[in-house]
């Protein structure tokens, strides 16, 4: 696994690099702003770029803009965005235009190597990853009472895992269920919520996220 790390804080950039290396990930480039990041990606063609959302000069959404360009120009390079915001806005925006190979995690996950490595591997495999905290927030979000009441508890667990970007197989592993059971749950959920059925993994994530955000 080859990655590029982009963060304007030297302490975090270096610390993250050290931890990733210890976990057996090859860090092929480091960047402290968007320009350096784009150059580094073009040069080393990593599997995934780990990008902080806030970077100079504006300290707002430079990371998101850079992620879009990476996904446009280098379809084989995945992007893992690290964000300060518990907010699915950027994730939905990116997923809508650049399905797949995309992750959106909260910044504090950098200290949880297991989650980080899992996310990197899933992104490198072409999946997408949405932070469980963000998904949990979306699920708990106030909405008309009946909207999620039609789902059983198990179906709600499956829905949340779908929103986090997991495949059926991933969901089956997490919930210790058979693949067929998961498939039937997924069909049930899509029918009950009246969502457009799709076999495409990314469209499924996007549809679920949009439903949860609406």
């Amino acid at each position, binding site marked *: 696994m080859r990655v590029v790390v982009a963060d304007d804080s030297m302490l975090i950039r270096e610390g993250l690099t050290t931890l990733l290396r210890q976990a057996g990930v090859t860090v092929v480039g480091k960047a402290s702003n968007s320009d350096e990041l784009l150059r580094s990606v073009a040069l080393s063609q990593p599997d995934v770029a780990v990008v902080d959302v*806030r970077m100079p000069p504006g*300290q707002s959404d430079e990371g998101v803009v850079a992620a879009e360009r990476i996904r446009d120009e280098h379809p084989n390079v995945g992007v893992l965005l690290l964000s300060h915001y518990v907010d699915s806005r950027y994730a939905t925006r990116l997923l809508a235009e650049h399905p797949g190979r995309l992750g959106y995690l909260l910044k*504090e996950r950098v200290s949880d190597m297991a989650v980080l490595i899992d996310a990197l591997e899933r992104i490198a495999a072409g999946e997408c990853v949405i932070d469980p905290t963000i998904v949990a927030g979306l699920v708990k979000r106030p909405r008309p009472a009946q909207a999620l009441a039609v789902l059983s508890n198990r179906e709600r667990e499956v829905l949340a895992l779908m929103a986090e970007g997991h495949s059926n197989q991933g969901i089956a592993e997490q919930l210790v269920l058979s693949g067929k059971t998961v498939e039937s749950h997924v069909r049930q959920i899509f029918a009950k919520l009246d969502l457009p059925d799709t076999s495409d993994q990314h469209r499924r994530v996007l549809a679920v996220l949009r439903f949860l955000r609406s």
Partner: protein
Amino acid sequence: MRAGNASVGRYATIVVAALAVAYGLIAVGVAARHGVFTTYAGRSTAAAAGELAAGWMLVAAGLAAWWRRPRVPAGPLAVLAGFAWFIPDWIGWQTGPAAVRALALAAQGLTLAAVVQLALGAPTGRPSSALARRLIVTTWSATVAIAIGRVLFYNPFTDPACVTWCTANPLLLHDSQTVARALDWADVGLCAFVAVGVASIGGRSLAHATTAARRMLLPVVLPAALFIAAWTVRVILVATTPNENPARAIAMASFAGRAVGLGLMALGLAWSTGRAARGATMTRRLARQAAAGTEEHSLEVALARATGDVSLRLAFPLRDGGRWIDTQGSEIEPPQRRADRSVTTILRDGQTVAALLHDPAILDGEALRRGIGTAAELAIANERLRAEALVQLREVKASRLRLVETGDAERRTLERDLHDGAQQRLVSLAIALRMAQSAFDEQGAGAAGASLREAGDRLDRAITELRELAHGLHPVELSDEGLAAAVEALAEGAPMHLGALPAQRLPPSVEVAAYVLVEEATRRAAARERGPAPGVQAQLADGKLVVEVEDRGEDSPQRALADLVSVVDRVRALDGLLTVESTSDGGVLIRAELPCA
């Protein structure tokens, strides 16, 4: 201006009018019966009608002027001229008492004198120049002198020129045809003098008058000139021919000129009276409106309507000096006189409370000022309060918006400070701890030491940053111990001379406002890095907290006030007052009064 009926009662007016009607009819009747050869009215019906019309119009115009403007002589003068106009009928009363005819003969010049005064004193009858006044006095004196001379020395009975209507003069002192002839020529001389005088003085004042004044003068002066010219023809006829014979065409033409001149002058007088009375009408209208309390339109519209000047505008000076507002409370340029715009200021207790901007051609400023009575002044004061309230409302709205924007900006700054500061440090601390953990797992306790020290350092920095951030939001001393403690803590970090500070606790919003004022004001001083440290003190007085910051390094009160606008908003929101004034030593004194009730 007082209402007209204070001096001339309604009944007096009606009585005088009725008298004038009766008197005119009797005079013309006498002329028709007993003056067929000696009077114009007796000679032709048209002349009688013209005589009546001119006389009655003049009396009517005089009464109207007297009613509307009782303090000026124009009204009584016109009434007098109107009555005197019928005198020739009494002179020609062939069967009448000798005394009446002799007195009438003597008094005939009264009409001329009254017309002269009306013309030179137009439109009030009160002359504005000393020369005009002298001319009027001379005319009256000469008229009276000639009248007395005629009564004492003229005996029509022995007058060889007197053919048809010889009578005795019962008041005769000494029969002297020479004196009588001389008096006739004196009359001619007086007429010539008057004609020249009125032409030159009247012409000059017309030439120098404003358009508005000229409009008031012309309708009176021109007919008067016609009358005087025709009168002059008459006295020349009297002096040069055996008698004034109404049968002669030139004599009748002269009479017609006098009648027309007098009639037109009556119209002119009525017109100028109406114009001048607009001010009074306006006052009454405004008074009615103010009393009714139902203003359909704004005062400005009411004034424009009352005066007929659609360009009329009201402007008010703001109490804080220099700035002017219109009736909508919008700030405008200070009013200045222009060619097409007069500025009439309304004073109250020596202070300008309003200015009227109006067209000088339509309305004379002085007349307008006089026309605005107490009631209108009240209405203007009301309007001013309304405009000031609008200004305040606008300022409050702006201040409210600024408060919201300041709050938003502070939240943005805070969010940024938290994300870029404390959160970054905590994330990197988490990383350092992970590294320590993996070092410990792989290489044992000794290897983790460096990473743990690093983690400890980062934690210390995060704590410091959080503390500073929290303190910047709201100093803990302020809520825990009060203003004095918070300002003293502030003084440890920024140079300032502390004076008295209130020991007791005050309402939290007052404490925060006072603290923010001190913090902002001293930060401005500290930012200059040079100059004397500001002086700070705060005291409770009359239920108000008075906070003063003296900044000797700042010389512009305006600049200081502009920098402190967010504090001004805070203070105003608490119903307080923040002022910045120059001090004698060239600095500024920032002073806030905060009600603590």
